[in-house]
């Protein structure tokens, strides 16, 4: 099961990002665990400067905007 972390300070876009990933993964029938992380220290350690950002299994794959459907599909499948 993929561990997905959405990094963000709780702004609307970060919440949306987590929702979109959740929706697409359930559509595709992929089992994922999504957590939201708002700690600035964690963001700093991943080197994230623009939110929302997405970390999958410990690797930063995306930052700065809500990811597109194609991007999400590529990450989780």
């Amino acid at each position, binding site marked *: 099961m993929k561990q997905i972390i959405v990094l963000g300070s709780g702004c609307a876009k970060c919440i949306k990002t987590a929702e979109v990933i959740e929706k697409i993964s359930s559509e595709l029938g992929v089992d994922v665990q999504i957590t939201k992380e708002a700690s*600035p220290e964690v*963001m700093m350690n991943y080197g*994230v*400067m623009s*939110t929302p950002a997405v970390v999958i299994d410990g690797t930063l794959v995306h930052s700065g*905007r809500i990811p597109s459907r194609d991007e999400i599909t590529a990450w989780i499948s």
Partner: protein
Amino acid sequence: MFEYFTTFADLLIYDLLSLSPESRWGSSLHFFVEDTTKIFALLIVMIYVVAWVRASLNVERVRDYLSGKHRSIGYLLGSLFGAITPFCSCSSIPVFLGFTSAGIPVGITMAFLLTSPLINEVAILLLLSLLGWEFTLMYIAIGIAVGMLGGVFLDLIHAERWLQAFAAKAYQSAQGRVSTSSGGDRQALNLEERHRFAKTETQDIFLRVWKWVFIGVGLGALLHGFVPEGWFESNLGDGQWWSVPAAVLMGIPLYSNATGVIPVMESLITKGLPVGTTLAFCMSTVAASFPEFILLKQVMQWRLLATIFVMLLCSFTVVGWLFNVFSFS
């Protein structure tokens, strides 16, 4: 080119609603319709154009560029980039940490963050269309100066002592490390990508600011129609020294962004409030807002937070006094 908007407001308010230009409501509504239509049209065109041009500029590139720059030029560059780099205020914290952990001095980082809310393309556009280019240039110069001098001051008092422990540690460990440029080498964007970026950016910014335009212009319109000409001049305009700090203090609990405040500035100035007092009030409303300061608590100790807050209030007061003195002499 702006006359179209006046004509449209004339038609709608004076002809269609048959309100008299001399009546309070007539004059308020005319102001409201003319300014909102003009601002919305300009916003859509200008945000798109500006976003298209700066599509490849982002905070990561600015960080790589600023790290390793000498302090003598760093404050100016930090402040300038703060004015032109697009980033959402909800990203202030990650940006602060990104800069700090790259070893960029706190003063330069703060020059970036202080100038950012004061100057942006929307603010400049509104100033140009409502208050003219001279006022706009003056506003930009002050915004950059406040950021730069604020940054210099913070480094002089060694503000990095008062960061939260993890941030201070990250800053320390970046010192002495040779700066490595990371994400700076993005390929050039093609026209299609630029268009896509500019389109999303226009939608995002527009959705974020339209209500501020309504509120700001609405307030400005009420002032325009209901406050008698010269009211401020006879009540506050004589350059009483205390009117500037009073205006700054009044601006603190009022939380707005530059988009909402500039239409109000226009009305305040035309009603005779001195330029310096108006500027001080507006900058305090935009830059010294409690909600954003509380966010910074995550990376700074109270002591530093309070220092920056007081520093901002003092600098806006000084700006106000200077401009009142110059415009009176």
